[in-house]
C-alpha cells in the first residue's frame, strides 16, 4: 500500500513537472499569438479604394489611370447615397431652415429696393412676404404634424403668385416643398431625435467614404480619407447600421448595451433605403482587395501613426544598436580574450569579474540615469539627449553580455588548438589572433547577436538619453558633405531618434490617436518582436551548427 502511494506521488511529481513546462510553452504562445495575429494585420489586410488613394497621394504608388477609373466608378456608386443623405438632411435640420427663411426674407427686401418698387407697394409686398416667412417658420417650429402641413400648404398656395416670380422667395417655396416631403414621412415631434441620429449616420458615412462632397477638406489626414481597411470599414458600417444605446433593463439593474437598428429608427423616411444601398453595395463602394503592405516596414507615419508604417523606428533602433555594438564589441571581445588567455588568478581579476557581474545586474533604468548624468549632462561635447548618448549607454549595458558569451566561447576552444599553434612557433598573441579567436568566432558571434537583440529591445536606458516618440528622422547630410566636413556626420549623431522600443510604449500608452487603430499599435510591437526573434533564431542556428562542428572533432 505504501509503495503504491509512493509510486503515485512519483507519477504526480513527474506530471506536475511536465505540466509546468507545458504552462511555460503555453505562456509563450499566449503572449506571441495575439501580438502576431493583430500585428500582421498591419501588413496583410484587405484594402479599400481609400487606401489606394492615400498611397497615391502620400507616396505616389499605384497605377494612375486604373486608380482614376476605379475612383470614378466608386464616386458614381456613392452619388445616390450622398443624394439621399443631402435630401433628407436638408428637410430635417429645421434650425438651419429657419435661418435660411429669414435670410431669404432679407434678400427679398434688397431685391425690392433694387427694382425701385414704389413706397406703398413696397410696404405691402414686404408685409405679404413677412406673412409667408412667419407661416413657414411656424411650420418649421411646430411639433404637430397637422399644423405643419397646414402651414406649408398656406405657404405653397402663394407659389403661383406672379409677384414672386424670379424673386428670392422662389427659393423659400423650394424649401417648403422639401420640408413638406420630409414632414409627410417622419414623425415631426421626434425631429430632434432624428437630427442626432442623422448626425451619427453622417459621421459613419464620412468614416466610410471620406468627407462628403462639397465639404471643406479637413486638416487632419485621418479625416481626409474614408475607411482605408475593410476591418475599419466594417466597424464604420456597424455604426451606420446599428445605434448602440445603453438601455435600462428594469429598475435597479445595471444598464445594458443594446443595438438598435437604424433601419427601424428611420423607418418610412426618405433615408431608409440608404442603409440597404450601403450594406448591399459595399463592395462596389469601397472596392476591397487583398494587400500585402510590405512598405509598412519602410514608410514613415502619417498623422501620428494613424496611417503609414514604422520605417524610421526600425532605422532608429538599428542605428542605436549598431552604434552601441561598435563601442561594445571591441571592448567586450578583448576583455574576454584577456580574461581567458592572459589574466593571472589574482584579486584584481576577481574584482574585474565582480564588476562585470555587477554591471550585468544593474537595473536598466539606472543605466538610463547614469547615461543622463554622465553622457548628457557632464560631457559637454554631447550635451543633449541624442543618438550618441543613447548608444553609448546601450553599449555599457551590452558589455557584460558580450564579455560573458565571448569568454565562454574562447574557453570552449580545445586546448590542443593552442598547443598546435604554439608548437609551430607562433607566439601567444599570434595564437590568440590567428587560431583561438577564429575558432571561437561563431560563439562570439552568437553572444554579439544576443546582446544586439537585448539592446534593440531595451527602452529604459534610452528613455532620457536620446529617444523621442515623434520627431524628424535624423538628418546625416549627404556622403559628399561627409568628405568635405567629417564633423557633419558627428552632427547627425547629436540628434535624437525614434526607436521601436520606445515607440511601442508610446503607441500603447501615450498616443491618443493610435488608440483608434489597434493594428498600428500591434504592428509596431510585432516589428520589434520580429526583429528580436530573427536575431535570436539566428543565434540559436549558429550555435547548433557550432556545437555540431565541435562534436565532430
Amino acid at each position, binding site marked *: 500500500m505504501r509503495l503504491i502511494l509512493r509510486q503515485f506521488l512519483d507519477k504526480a511529481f513527474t506530471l506536475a513537472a*511536465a505540466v509546468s513546462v507545458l504552462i*511555460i510553452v503555453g505562456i509563450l504562445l499566449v503572449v506571441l499569438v495575439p501580438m502576431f495575429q493583430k500585428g500582421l494585420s498591419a501588413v496583410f489586410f484587405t484594402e479599400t479604394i481609400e487606401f489606394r488613394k492615400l498611397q497615391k497621394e502620400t507616396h505616389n504608388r499605384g497605377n494612375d489611370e486604373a486608380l482614376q477609373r476605379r475612383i470614378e466608378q466608386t464616386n458614381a456608386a456613392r452619388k445616390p447615397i450622398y443624394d439621399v443623405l443631402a435630401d433628407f438632411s436638408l428637410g430635417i435640420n429645421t434650425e438651419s431652415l429657419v435661418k435660411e427663411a429669414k435670410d431669404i426674407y432679407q434678400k427679398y427686401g434688397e431685391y425690392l429696393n433694387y427694382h425701385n418698387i414704389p413706397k406703398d407697394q413696397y410696404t405691402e409686398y414686404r408685409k405679404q412676404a413677412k406673412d409667408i416667412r412667419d407661416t413657414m417658420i411656424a411650420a418649421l417650429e411646430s411639433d404637430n404634424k397637422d399644423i405643419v402641413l397646414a402651414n406649408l400648404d398656406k405657404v405653397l398656395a402663394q407659389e403661383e403668385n406672379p409677384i414672386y416670380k424670379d424673386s428670392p422667395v422662389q427659393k423659400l417655396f423650394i424649401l417648403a416643398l422639401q420640408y413638406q416631403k420630409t414632414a409627410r414621412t417622419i414623425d415631426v415631434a421626434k425631429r430632434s431625435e432624428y437630427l442626432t441620429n442623422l448626425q451619427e449616420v453622417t459621421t459613419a458615412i464620412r468614416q466610410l467614404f471620406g468627407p462628403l462632397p462639397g465639404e471643406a477638406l479637413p486638416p487632419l489626414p485621418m479625416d481626409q480619407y474614408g475607411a482605408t481597411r475593410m476591418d475599419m470599414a466594417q466597424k464604420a458600417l456597424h455604426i451606420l447600421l446599428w445605434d448602440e444605446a445603453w438601455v435600462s433593463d428594469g429598475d435597479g439593474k445595471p444598464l445594458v448595451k443594446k443595438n438598435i437598428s437604424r433601419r427601424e429608427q428611420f423607418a418610412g423616411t426618405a433615408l431608409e433605403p440608404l442603409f440597404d444601398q450601403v450594406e448591399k453595395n459595399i463592395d462596389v463602394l469601397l472596392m476591397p482587395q487583398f494587400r500585402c503592405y510590405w512598405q509598412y516596414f519602410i514608410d514613415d507615419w502619417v498623422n501620428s501613426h494613424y496611417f503609414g508604417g514604422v520605417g524610421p523606428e526600425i532605422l532608429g533602433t538599428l542605428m542605436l544598436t549598431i552604434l552601441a555594438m561598435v563601442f561594445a564589441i571591441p*571592448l567586450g571581445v*578583448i576583455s574576454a580574450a584577456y580574461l581567458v588567455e592572459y589574466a593571472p588568478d589574482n584579486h584584481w581579476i576577481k574584482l574585474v569579474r565582480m564588476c562585470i557581474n555587477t554591471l550585468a545586474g*544593474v537595473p536598466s533604468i539606472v543605466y538610463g540615469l*547614469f547615461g543622463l548624468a554622465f553622457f548628457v549632462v557632464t560631457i559637454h561635447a554631447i550635451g543633449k539627449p541624442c543618438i550618441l548618448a543613447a548608444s553609448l549607454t546601450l553599449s555599457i549595458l551590452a558589455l557584460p553580455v558580450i564579455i560573458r558569451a565571448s569568454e565562454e566561447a574562447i574557453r570552449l576552444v580545445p586546448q590542443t588548438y593552442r*598547443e598546435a599553434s604554439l*608548437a609551430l612557433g607562433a607566439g601567444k598573441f599570434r595564437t590568440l589572433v590567428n587560431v583561438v579567436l577564429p575558432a571561437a568566432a561563431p560563439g562570439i558571434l552568437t553572444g554579439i547577436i544576443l546582446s544586439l537583440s537585448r539592446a534593440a529591445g531595451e527602452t529604459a536606458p534610452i528613455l532620457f538619453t536620446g529617444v523621442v516618440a515623434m520627431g524628424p528622422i535624423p538628418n546625416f547630410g549627404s556622403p559628399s558633405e561627409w568628405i568635405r566636413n567629417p564633423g557633419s556626420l558627428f552632427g547627425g549623431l547629436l540628434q535624437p531618434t525614434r526607436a521601436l522600443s520606445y515607440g511601442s510604449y508610446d503607441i500603447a*500608452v501615450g498616443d491618443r490617436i493610435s488608440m483608434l487603430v489597434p493594428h498600428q499599435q500591434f504592428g509596431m510591437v510585432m516589428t520589434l518582436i520580429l526583429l528580436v526573434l530573427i536575431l*535570436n533564431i539566428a543565434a540559436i542556428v549558429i550555435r547548433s551548427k557550432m556545437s555540431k562542428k565541435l562534436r565532430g572533432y
Partner: protein
Amino acid sequence: MAENAAQTSVGQKKAAVGFSRSLLLTPSEDLVGFLSGHLGRAILFCITATSVAAVLLIFYFVIRESIPFFYTGTAASGIARVKEFFLDTGWYPSATVPRYGALALIVGSLYVTIGALVIAVPLGLLAGVYLSDIAPFSLRQICKPVIEILAAIPSVAYGFFAVMVLAPWLQTHLGFSTGTNAMNASLILAVMALPTIISVSEDAMSAIGREIREASYGLGATRAETMIKVVLPAAHSGILAAVLLGMMRAIGETMVVWMASGNASRIPSPWWDVSQSIRTMTATIAGDMGETPKNSEHYYALFTVGLTLLVFTFSLNLISEYLLSQIMRNKRGGK
C-alpha cells in the same frame, strides 16, 4: 596556463634530447618582444578594466546626483530628509509643499517582486527539475529555445501585452475596477523572471553529480523522493541564487511595471488586495524624469530612488554571486 604547460614540456624535452640552452629567449635577448608583450598585456588589462570603470562611474554619478537631495545645508535637515524618504508614503513632488516619501514606492517594488516570485519560483523550479532530470534529450533541445525566446522578448513588448491584452482580460473576467494593477504587473514579471530561474536552477541541479542520484535510487527512492529529498537540498545554494537572480530581474524591471502597475503611489490595503494599483521605484524614475527640470529637488530625489535601487540590486548580486561560487565548489568537489 597553456604557456606554463608548454614551458614544462620544453624543459622535459631539453633534458631528454640535451639542448645546450633553454629554447626560451631571455628578456635581454629579445627586448622588443619582451617589452611589446608586457605593454600589450598592460593595454589589454586597461581595456578589460573598462567594466570596472563603468561600474565605478555608474556609482559615482548616481551618488553624486543624489547627494544634493540630502545635503541641504544643516545636518538636521539632512536627517529629516532621510527619514522622510524612507518612512513617509507620500510622493508628491509637484505639490506646493513637495513631499518625497518613497516608502510606498519601495514597498510597491517589493510587492510586485514578491508577487512575481510566488508565481515564478514553484513553476520555474518544477520546470528546472523536468529539464534537468526528467525530459529526454530531444525534448530538452526543443524546450531550451522556447525558454530563450521567452527571455528574449523585450520588456516593452511584455508591457504592451499587459496593457493591451491582459488588462482588458482581467477587467472583464475577474471584475477588477482597473486592469492595470499589482496582479497584472506581478504576472508579467513572473513570466520575465521564469527563464532566469529555470536556467540557473537547472544548472544547479545538473551540477549535483550523478553519483548522488544513483545512491538515492540504489536505496530504493523514487524519482520524486530523490529530487525533493536529495537533489534539491544539495543544490540549495544554486536554487537560492536562481531565486535571487529572478528577483533582481523583477525588481529592476521598468517598462512592464510602468505600463502595467497603474502607477498609483500607495501601499495596498488590505495588503493582499492585488487588484489595487501601485507604483514602483523604477516606474517613478521612468515616469517623472521626463518632466523634471535638471538640478531641481525632484531630479535629485529621482536619483536617490535610483541609488536605492542600485544598492538593492548590488547587494542581491553580491549574495547570489557568493551562492554561485558555492555551486562551483560543489561541482569541483563532485568531480
